[in-house]
């Protein structure tokens, strides 16, 4: 087992990043012009990185599977972005944001990375304002803030319930400016299917043009993976339909380590599943928990009536409502972190207090805040979310509480990277949700946007120079290089293998089967027996997939089933690795809840003596067991305690 070098700089926590920046190499403007960088994915991380790198003078090639960079799923983030500005004078600070994030992640993230994230958070807000992001303002013209789960201050900046959209449009506009100036070569409807490694360095990618079906070669001096998370392993998630783990998975299969694959976030406030025909789940922003109160009935008989549709929520008197988060966690109340809120909802529903026909929903009630603040205020804060809820469910949340239930939302795990955001393959970087680095076992709300933009605007543009400074003599790679030939052939063969199965079951049918296994055994509660069962079942589904999948349509043209099949092929392998990682991590921490490791009160119980490490998995070949490497997490500043929000 290798000891991984995270390259966290020595010295006091608050000085690590400044000292590191002073020590790393810089590329001159004249040399930047000679260097090409591929950025895969155009969400907040990829978009901000592509724009910033192009502005600095590098030649950037950007890729996305959608028809426009603006459609990356960062756009769906609703509630906000954290920054330690202390504009509210509530004693916020870089240290407090750092501490909240480390604690929120249940002490499974790196101190150095998280402190740096908090350090650059303020600059992100300034940058976004300068780009014209229309953040919410107070009447005096200053920026407005709200609060999010797991914190006691108001540090979340927002643009109504569309913060992700506005931040993404900000960096997308910056990208557009660079595309207009010829500094970014943009490739839409183009999906990365392999990485080209020459002389031990990442030198390009193989993609499939989703319009023409052609397999293409693209070379560069460095490759940046910014393709988000792999929540769609579960089939049903809040991810967009096209979100996939493909690029990260190709990185893994080319030798990059995969960090903490079992750490996925289950978001407590999603619209519940409505039947077997559902294609995806819709999130209701965590910001709603600022003004909504979560409850289930106190009496079992009321719950049964609700499940049968014999009574409605408004028929239940206040004293018969169990505001279980306020009851269990008085100091944080409805704003406990996501993992805690999700488990508490599951606990109530498992105990028989669920409020919909399936018994898998709890209420999020705005009655009290409407009484306190007036309907106008609630409408101004959450109007678009309420409209979205009503369009989907046909229930007006101003009159009746929302029904919510936890759903897969985000992956904290991802490609392993060092402090420079570089994987263990030289020249290959991973940023944003695609890497594993900053959120430990659980991400706090409004921190994904912060991390994506921190990586793309203010971290990668510095750290990539340290690598590229040694590449200024390296000529552009020829596209007929043997490694390109080899990888293109491998991609063709992979696609042909899928296409030529010509079985009788749709791609989606396999994806749903995988999703069900993942949700039942690698979801909100996990145990040894279930995980072992999941590994066996996934192997069976995989074998069936390669025997019976049916992909109609042409091979050499737009073929959506072929696209989906490639992604599901990756998910089948990713699901296996997630289950293995979950099986190996015999403690509970953050979103990873092992039923064998629980406190008396039912909270996640860490095992710091044995599991204070990042698991980094190394691929060994198809159907071979991967090797686990451990990166020990060293805590120089914070003291590890049982996480409490009581």
């Amino acid at each position: 087992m290798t000891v991984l070098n995270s390259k966290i700089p020595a010295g006091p926590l608050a000085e690590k990043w400044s000292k590191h920046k002073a020590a790393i190499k810089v590329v001159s403007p004249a040399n930047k012009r000679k260097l090409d960088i591929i950025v895969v994915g155009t969400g907040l991380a990829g978009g901000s990185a592509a724009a910033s790198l192009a502005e600095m003078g590098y030649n950037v090639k950007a890729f996305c599977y959608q028809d426009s960079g603006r459609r990356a799923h960062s756009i769906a983030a609703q509630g906000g972005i954290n920054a330690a500005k202390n504009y509210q004078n509530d004693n916020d600070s870089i240290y407090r944001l750092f501490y909240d994030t480390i604690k929120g992640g249940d002490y499974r993230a790196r101190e150095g990375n998280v402190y740096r994230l908090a350090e650059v958070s303020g600059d992100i807000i300034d940058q976004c304002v300068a780009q014209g992001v229309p953040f919410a303002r107070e009447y005096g013209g200053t920026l407005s803030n709200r609060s999010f789960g797991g914190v006691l201050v108001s540090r979340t900046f927002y643009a109504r319930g569309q913060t992700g959209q506005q931040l993404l449009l900000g960096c997308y506009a910056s990208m557009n400016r660079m595309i207009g100036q010829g500094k970014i070569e943009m490739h839409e409807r183009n999906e990365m299917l392999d990485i080209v490694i020459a002389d031990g360095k990442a030198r390009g990618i193989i993609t499939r043009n989703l319009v023409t079906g052609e397999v293409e070669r693209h070379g560069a001096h460095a490759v940046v993976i910014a393709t988000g998370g792999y929540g769609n392993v579960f089939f049903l998630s809040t991810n967009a339909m096209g979100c996939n783990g493909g690029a990260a998975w190709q990185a893994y299969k080319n030798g990059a380590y995969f960090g903490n694959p079992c750490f996925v976030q289950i978001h407590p406030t999603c619209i519940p599943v409505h039947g077997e025909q559902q294609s995806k789940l819709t999130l209701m922003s965590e910001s709603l928990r600022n003004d909504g109160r979560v409850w289930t009935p106190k009496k079992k008989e009321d719950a049964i009536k609700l499940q049968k549709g014999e009574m409605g929520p408004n028929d239940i008197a206040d004293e018969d409502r169990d505001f279980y988060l306020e009851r269990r966690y008085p100091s944080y109340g409805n704003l406990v972190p996501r993992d805690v809120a999700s488990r508490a909802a599951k606990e109530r529903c498992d105990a028989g207090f669920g409020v919909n026909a399936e018994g898998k929903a709890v209420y999020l009630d705005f009655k009290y805040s409407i009484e306190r603040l007036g309907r106008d205020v609630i409408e101004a804060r959450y109007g678009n979310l309420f409209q979205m809820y009503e369009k989907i469910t046909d229930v007006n949340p101003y009159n009746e509480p929302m029904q919510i239930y936890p759903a897969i939302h985000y992956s904290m795990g991802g490609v392993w990277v060092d402090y420079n955001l570089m994987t263990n393959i030289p020249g290959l970087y991973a940023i944003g949700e695609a890497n594993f680095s900053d959120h430990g076992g659980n991400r706090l709300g409004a921190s994904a946007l912060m991390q994506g933009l921190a990586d793309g605007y203010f971290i990668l543009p510095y750290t990539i120079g340290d690598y590229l400074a040694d590449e200024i003599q390296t000529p552009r790679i020829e596209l007929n290089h043997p490694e390109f030939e080899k990888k293109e052939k491998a991609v063709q063969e992979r696609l042909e293998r899928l296409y030529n199965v010509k079985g009788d079951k749709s791609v989606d049918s396999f994806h749903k089967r995988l999703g069900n296994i993942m949700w039942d055994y690698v979801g909100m509660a996990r145990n040894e027996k279930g995980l072992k069962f999941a590994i066996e079942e996934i192997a069976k589904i995989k074998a069936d997939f390669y025997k019976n999948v049916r992909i109609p349509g042409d091979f050499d043209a737009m073929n959506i089933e072929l696209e989906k099949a490639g992604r599901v092929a990756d998910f089948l392998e990713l699901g296996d690795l997630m289950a293995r990682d979950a099986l190996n991590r015999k403690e509970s921490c953050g979103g990873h809840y092992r039923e064998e490791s629980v406190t008396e009160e039912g909270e996640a119980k860490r095992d710091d003596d044995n599991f204070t490490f990042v698991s980094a998995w190394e691929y060994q070949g198809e159907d071979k067991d991967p090797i686990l490497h451990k990166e020990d997490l060293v805590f120089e500043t914070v003291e590890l305690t049982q996480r409490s929000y009581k």
Partner: protein
Amino acid sequence: MADKILKELTIKVWRQKNAKAKGKFESYKISDISTGTSFLEMLDILNEQLINDGIEPIAFDHDCREGICGMCSLFIDGRAHGPDDDITTCQLHMRKFEDGATITIEPWRAGAFPVIKDLIVDRTAFEKVLQSGGYISVNTGGVPDGNAIPISYDDAEEAMDAAACIGCGACVATCKNSSAMLFVSAKVSHLAKLPQGRVEATRRAKNMVAKMDELGFGNCTNTGACEVECPKGISIANIARLNREFLSATIKG
């Protein structure tokens, strides 16, 4: 609110193999659809049925399925994003349809948005318009503190109203002239309402309008149809603002 079952529906949908092929309508029957199913889930179910029958599924654009990414399109029974107001196709639910109905589905129809396949169109023209000026020219770093420029509550709100555009193209598809004025004016207004964006407001308006004309979008004749079908309720008041900015750009030269 209780979901009902639509026993049978006829889906009349535009099929076109690729940009060069000639397209035509095909009709398919589908049964037992819950009214709680979304429109795109209904298409998923139909596609599953087609795959099982050995027919290539219908290609349509979609991604977030939350009404925000702007990827989904579709002209449904003669209306962009279908028979409901202020939503995208992905938010449309089958409760808006009657049992036994024939539902007609077409792609966006506009010269500047050529069909790629079935219901998928090429909206690259929007990208080109934005690349010509839909931004504030600032580099990463070296910008003032976020609170250094106070912005009035109303200006921030109005900028946000315009910035809510999702770039789906419903306005273009709905306009009888295939004009992109609502799309372009939303971006121009969003940035012109903010002090940061005022600096290059006239230059921006001039460049974006020139690019829009070059790409083959039609003229605006003030029918207001775009505003009615915009899933995000973008107001045609933005078009008046764009005209003002453009006029000012023309005068200044």
